[in-house]
Each structure stands twice: as C-alpha cells, then as structure tokens.
C-alpha cells in the first residue's frame, strides 16, 4: 500500500512538473509557429543581416539542423550578407536553438494576389 501511494505521489509530482514546464514551452512554440523572432541579443543581428533582402518569414519557415543553419548562413554571407565571423556564429546559435526540424510548420497566412499579379482592365 505504501508502495502504491509512493508511486501515485511520484506520478503526481511528475505530472505537476510536466504541466508546469510544458505550458511556457507551448507558448514559445506558438509564438514561433506564428512567425515571431524570440527576444535575444542575436535577434537584432538576424534583422540587420537577413532582412536586407528577405522578409522575416523566409527565416521563420525554415526547420533546420545546426549544420544546415551553418551552411545557410555561410551561403548568405557569400551572397553579400554583411555578417562578421562572430556575428555569424551568434546567428547560427540563435537560429539553431529555435527553428529546429521538429518545430511544427509556420502557420499559413491567407492572402489575395498582391498588386501587380493580375493584368489591369
């Protein structure tokens, strides 16, 4: 009986711990799936070095491993993104921390055809 109570107590403790830790992480996931850039010293770097040519969804829809982020940032530096070695390292760490392969897809945004997509008249 004591063993059963102990087991139940342990299960309750685990459940309580899971509930506590799960909810902020769910919120964080929701924010990421909604396309937000989490607050972080590297956020300003991404805004300054990536958003010269791309809108932010180009970043926030990717679901990549650290190795893939590394390659992507290197490719973009070759293409002209003005990031130093240190800045690139900080960006890769930031990108790889949040936009991981197991994150659910970015929530789609429905839209009409943008201006210029349909012939006039």
């Amino acid at each position: 009986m004591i063993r059963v109570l102990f087991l139940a107590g342990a299960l309750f403790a685990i459940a309580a711990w899971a509930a506590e830790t799960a909810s902020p992480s769910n919120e964080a996931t929701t924010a990421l799936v909604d396309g937000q850039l989490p607050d972080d010293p590297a956020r300003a770097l991404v805004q300054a070095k990536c958003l010269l040519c791309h809108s932010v969804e180009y970043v926030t829809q990717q679901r990549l491993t650290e190795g893939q982020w590394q390659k992507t940032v290197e490719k973009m530096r070759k293409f002209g993104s003005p990031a130093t070695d240190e800045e690139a390292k900080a960006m890769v760490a930031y990108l790889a921390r949040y936009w991981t392969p197991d994150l659910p897809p970015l929530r789609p945004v429905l839209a009409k055809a943008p201006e210029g997509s349909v012939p006039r008249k």
Partner: protein
Amino acid sequence: MTLARRSLLKSSLATAAAATWWLKAPALAEAKGSPGLIRRTERPLNYESVRSTFTTRITPIDRFYLRNHFDIPDVDIAKWRLKIYGLVDKPLSLSLADLERMPQVTVEAVLQCAGNGRGLFSPPVPGVQWRFGAMGNAEWTGVRFKDVLALAAPKQDAAFIQLQGAERPTMSTTPAFIRAIPMAKALHPDTLLALKMNGKPLAHNRGRPLRVVPAGWVGDDWVRSLVDVEVRSDEPTAFYYNPGYRFPVNPGPPGAAIPADQMKPMTKVNVKSLLGSLSDGDRLRPGAHDLVGVAFSGEAGIDRVDLTFDGGKTWTAAKLDGPATPYGFRVFRYRWNPGPGSYQIACRATDTTGASQPDVGVWNPGGYLNNAIDRVRVEVQA
C-alpha cells in the same frame, strides 16, 4: 441558471472554441480560403495557391502561384528590348512590337516550381516551404522560340541557350538569376516566348512583357521579363544553373549529401495529382460527394487516376475529363458515397509512358520534384 441554459452556454463556448481552432487550423483554413493564395514570403513575392484552386483545367490568374528570387523588375515597355547574341550570324534587338508582329501560337502547359512539395519532405530542406500549391495550368500565347532564333541564325556549334530576365538581386554580390536550356528544347515547336497568360498580357508580377515557356519542363527554366538570350556552345557556370536547381543522378537515402558531379539539371515535370475538392480535416455528411482534382505529367498525357479509401488495399479509377493534353492539367472526378467513419483518401496518377507516383517523394538536397501520392484525411459523420 438552469441546467439547460448552463449546458447551452457550455456548448456555445465549445462551438466558439472550435471555431477559433478552425480559424487557426492550417489545413482547414487553406481549404476554405476564399483569398486564394497562401503567403509564404512577402519579399521576394512567394505565394502558393490554396488546395481548393485545383478543381479546374485552367488556373485563374488571381489564384496562380508566384515565385521570385528577387524583387520584381520595373520594365519600361518603350525601352525594353529582347537581345539575342553569342553564336549567331545576326545578333538581334527586338521590341515588343517586333514580337507582336510575328505569328502567335497558344500552348496550354503546367507551370510548377521545382520546389513544390519541398515543405513535405523529411528531413526538412532549406528554401521556401511550398506544400501543394506552387503549380498551375495556363494557356500561354506568344511566338515560337525557334522562330525568333531563326531570325538570329545560330551558328553550327550552338548547343545551349542562356536565359536572363530583367530582375536583379538586391546586393551586387548575390548571383544573378541565369538559366540555360539545350538548343533542342529551345527549337521545340511548343517552346514559346509568351506575351500572354490565359489570353491577357502578362501582368507585372508574371514576367511582363515576355517569359520563356518551355512547355513540360520545370519552372526554373521559365525565365520572366526575358532580356538576354545568349547562344552558346557550352553550359553556363552561373550559380542558379550550377550548382543551383540540380537533382541527383542517383538519389541517396533521405538527408544524404550528393557530390556536385552527381547532380544534373532538371528537365521535365514528373507525374503528379492532387485532390482539390477536399482538404485534410474536412468533416462531411454521409452520402454522395463529388471528388475533383487535377493530374499532370511533363511531356506525357495522363492515362489514368486511381483513388483509394482504404490505405491502398484497393484502388478505383476516377473519370477523366477529356481530351488529354500533353502538358496541361487533366481534371479527374469520382462520385464517392461514404458511410460514417474516418477516411484517408489518396490519389495516384499514371501517365501515357506508364510512369506513376511514389508513396514517398524521392528526397534530394534541393527538395525538388516531390510527387508523392497525395493523401487527405476526412471525417464522415451523420
């Protein structure tokens, strides 16, 4: 508060919650989306069609996908010229009026982004995360590329046609979008330099005033706002031709790197089909439902489309609208009479060469040509 009112309140709260969930559920929002497009990126413009677009042979222009590497160029039609140079006896500079005076032909063909379905590959591949809708079928009208090339009189050793449009990258250090097609494809009578899409002059975002239409081939060669045509004996070394837009000669396991010399340019679109009338998560009443979708294959007509409702144990042929066209969508239809239950509906097209769709798309480092069998899950409730 009475019990009835309380339960009514509860149930209306549940309905409100369900409605909120519905608005937020991607698959359902896509299915019911009247705006017609899903924005993947605002800059550059990358939008894909919603699934419900794919129930007609011709895709309306306002629901047709947009794919760009760079900002859309502002073309001044009065100053715009198509230049043809390189291995030719008579280099040319043609105005829009010059091209409009030449014989015009119309070809119906599917334009599909090489990366359509990239977002469905596992493991994920970097790039625009297209799902189903980076494709569409249109009637393209313009001059035959071979007629234009004939005016320039290519030399004997001409083997490749290099293509570049008016768009330029934001940074001068970013490679320009340069492509090439073999001479044989440029000379094919169905390869056009199109001035019109579905009977209307090309819109600003769609390659105004002229785009390449290599009917049956993947979208990377459909260069927009074409300005430079260089006739060459060899293949260009430009980034977007090599290593860009290449597919493995022999694909490896998912996630595997492939050596650069084992990658080749893509050519024709592979066989594919998509159910347009239903989306993942739809809830239906028992009874008759007309299922409608589209099927296509690069350089072959569609021979059959089969559907399964039991995970592939049995397949049933859908009816095909006719006649088959070599490069366009073929609409398929099936009257389905389900009883209550959960169903996974899958469609599989077979083209006239016997090519069909795989269960799982062939993973490749660029995330290209994903033609996996399309599956949607629906609930039928009385």
